[in-house]
């Protein structure tokens, strides 16, 4: 069986949960005997044994490279600067394009690729690839699986939903033969907001690779030496992620225990708003902005933290509490997340309930036994959440789709 996959990002390039998920799933599908052709919008370094096709290679007449890969979670009107060619003197010709334009271009290239390649089923990850998947289906007549890692409703935290993205989602879901969501939480959204029939949607929870992480010298050593407690937020700073609720909870925590330091690791469009909020709430001494941390820096921060908080307003899955567990750090997460369906050894709150968030942060810092147990039992649970299991589910789903074709 061969699957033509479309995705927007892939490790090792620095990106969020989407790339991690595509990598984990692809790796285990290959292990399970499924051939994978993975199509990415632009040439990049990759990991693993799938065959990669970069949409900006040879077929693409004009684009040489883009400066920035547009993040899949940006609004449709956010623009990227693209080098479309070079002047005779060698200076690049730069044009601004919106992400929607990029997505359409990707779809156009997808239809060419789909004509050239042979495969049995199409699997497109995240909204930026949906149109590519649909185009490939139209050209090839093969079955189409759309994999929902996030929706326009998550990104907008329920307010001011980006209508051009919503339109793409809705039309693509209608064209798909099967829609996979990363959680029951997300399934519920697309059934109610996009009117996708429930039986067309299958939940495949993300996996998580469990490994014994490398121990690094801890970050924030001086603060730790002073006996400060570290509470970490790690992720983009956007309305979806609820960082503002995190800051409000921080105020209540610090009022009760001034010995707590909050670290915000990440970058995003709400950054200055959040910095302003921290100032306005008089928390400048208690909230540190660490910038976007990757790889070893991120791991060191996970290891240094006493507690990680994922305050998301709407989180289709949420890898952060699982990554934190790998590094031996427990978490407080919101009920409005997919990971809450699979991880029991964590503290759960509603994102709007700032009092309860503060209560759970304070309580877990006060009573070390609760943190230690969440880590020990949580890690046991983590071992059962493998990508292998997710890939088995996906493979079965391909089989069912293909059986239907032959009979």
């Amino acid at each position: 069986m061969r699957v033509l996959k479309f995705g927007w990002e892939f490790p090792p390039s620095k990106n969020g949960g989407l790339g991690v998920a595509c990598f984990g799933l692809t790796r285990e599908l290959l292990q399970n005997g499924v051939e994978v052709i993975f199509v990415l919008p632009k040439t990049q370094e990759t990991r693993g044994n799938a065959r990669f096709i970069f949409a900006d290679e040879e077929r693409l007449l004009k684009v040489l490279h883009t400066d920035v890969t547009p993040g899949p979670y940006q609004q449709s009107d956010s623009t990227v600067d693209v080098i479309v060619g070079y002047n005779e003197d060698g200076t690049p010709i730069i044009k601004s394009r919106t992400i929607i334009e990029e997505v359409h271009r990707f779809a156009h290239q997808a239809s060419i690729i789909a004509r050239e390649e042979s495969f049995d089923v199409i699997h497109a990850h995240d909204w930026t690839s949906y149109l590519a998947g649909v185009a490939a289906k139209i050209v090839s007549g093969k079955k189409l699986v759309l994999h929902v890692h996030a929706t326009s409703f998550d990104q907008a935290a329920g307010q001011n939903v980006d209508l051009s993205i919503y339109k793409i989602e809705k039309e693509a879901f209608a064209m798909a033969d099967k829609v996979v969501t990363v959680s029951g939480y997300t399934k519920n959204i697309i059934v109610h907001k996009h009117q996708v029939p429930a039986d067309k949607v299958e939940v495949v929870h993300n996996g998580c690779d469990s490994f014994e992480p490398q121990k690094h010298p801890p970050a924030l050593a001086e603060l730790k030496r002073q006996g400060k407690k570290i509470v970490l937020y790690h992720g983009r700073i956007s309305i979806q992620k609820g960082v503002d609720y995190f800051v409000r909870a921080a105020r209540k925590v610090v009022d009760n225990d001034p010995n707590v330091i909050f670290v915000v690791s990440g970058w995003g469009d709400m950054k200055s708003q959040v910095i302003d909020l921290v100032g306005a709430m008089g928390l400048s001494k208690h909230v540190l902005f660490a910038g976007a941390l990757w790889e070893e820096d991120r791991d060191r921060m996970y290891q240094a933290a006493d507690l990680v908080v994922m305050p998301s307003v709407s989180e289709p899955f949420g890898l952060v509490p699982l990554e934190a567990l790998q590094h031996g750090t427990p978490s407080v997460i919101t009920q409005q997340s997919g990971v809450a369906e699979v991880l029991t050894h964590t503290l759960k709150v509603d994102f709007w309930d700032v009092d309860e968030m503060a209560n759970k942060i304070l309580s877990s810092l006060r009573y070390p036994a609760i943190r230690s147990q969440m880590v020990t039992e949580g890690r046991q649970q983590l071992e059962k959440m493998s990508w292998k299991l997710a890939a088995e589910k996906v493979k079965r789903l391909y089989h069912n789709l293909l059986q239907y074709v032959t009979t």
Partner: protein
Amino acid sequence: MLTVCPYFHVHQPYRIKNYRVFDIGNDNEYFNDNSETDLNNRKIVEKVAEKSYRPTNKILKELLDNHPEFRFNLSFSGTVLDQFEAYAPDVLASFQELVATGRVEILADTYHHSLAFFYSVPEFKRQVQKHERRIKQLFGVKPRVFRNTELSYRNDLAKWCEDNGYIGIMAEGWDKYLGWRSPNYLYRPAGCKKIKVLLKNYKLSDDIAFRFGNKEWSSWPLNAETYADWIHSHHGDGETVNLFMDYESFGEHQWEDTGIFNFLRAMPEMVLRHPDTSFKTATETAESYEPTGEYDVPDVLTWADTDRDLTAWTGNEIQRDALNAIYYMEEDVMKTKKRDLIETWRKLQTSDHFYYMCTKWSNDGDVHAYFSPYQSPYDAYISFMNALSDLQLRVSQAVTEREQKKLAEDDTLIEKEGEKKETVTKTEKPDTVEIKETIPKATNWWNKILQKIPFLKL
């Protein structure tokens, strides 16, 4: 001769409300949830009264009236009796009516449904005595047979009961300790000379308590006649069939629509139909038969789970932490001599609090096996520990006040003696000495509280 010894355990805990860190030092009421959730103790007692206690007591009374041979036993936690008194006095009255027939025996128990025996025997003893006084006050009887929380049992508990005058004790009839032997005889606890142990026939007990309404069960639907046949089949290989279960099995664990009430209504008559079969109370049972062998239980045995141990209460880190924290306070709490503080401390010892913190289910995925009014075991732990922190604060305040008072009394004593001496020797010292002493004492008082509660910042 074969006799049946039924015993129904009646219990409700005082569930702790969602008690937050911010409440510590500000709110002394831990059990007064008035929401629509299952943390509202009044609501639960009213609900269970309607579903279970009222209809079941009505049937039990009818059975006693109609069958002079019918007998059974009840055990109450003090916490359920207190809640009946407050929220459903008619239920308490109906239990009193049952006991007044003289054919319903009440068993000895800990007042607070605690695991105190395994953590502090002196505290355990005080709770048993308090329970005995309460039973005497409400029912006018003195229990002679003991049963411990969750039917927990160990050789040394049996010895304690023997030393304290009980003629019988109840335990699970567990294969690990019985071997090939039958639970349907009396046994002698290892290390004891007089007391007899009555063993639960878990097969026949759990047929009612757990399996009755289960449609997947091969014997579903179970009628009283079949059940009586199962009991009668023990003629010849036993003397007493001990049916031990939660009272709430009737109407609450097994809902009315399972037919449990009709089953209960018919069961005694079916059992009595067989000649040579009757009912006995626990005391009658213990007095009628002799032990056939020794029951040797060196490790804690309970009636819970397939493990029949305490792991549902003490199996994980947060449970052990909470238990250690509460029993660690014993000396200070008792020192306060304050009734309300001691009582609150005991209410927090009720085993249910620790059961709600159980995480066993999350490993085998059987969420429904462990009922809890909390959203997660961690939520239960947080509310418990926060409430306990508040109690710790109140206790250390009370202890310090007491010590201060005592010091002040000593001071006045010294003063008086000084005055006496003054009159005799006419020296001019006492005034300055007194001022010096009071100031360090006051700082000491705050420091002590701060030491006890490191997170309290004033």
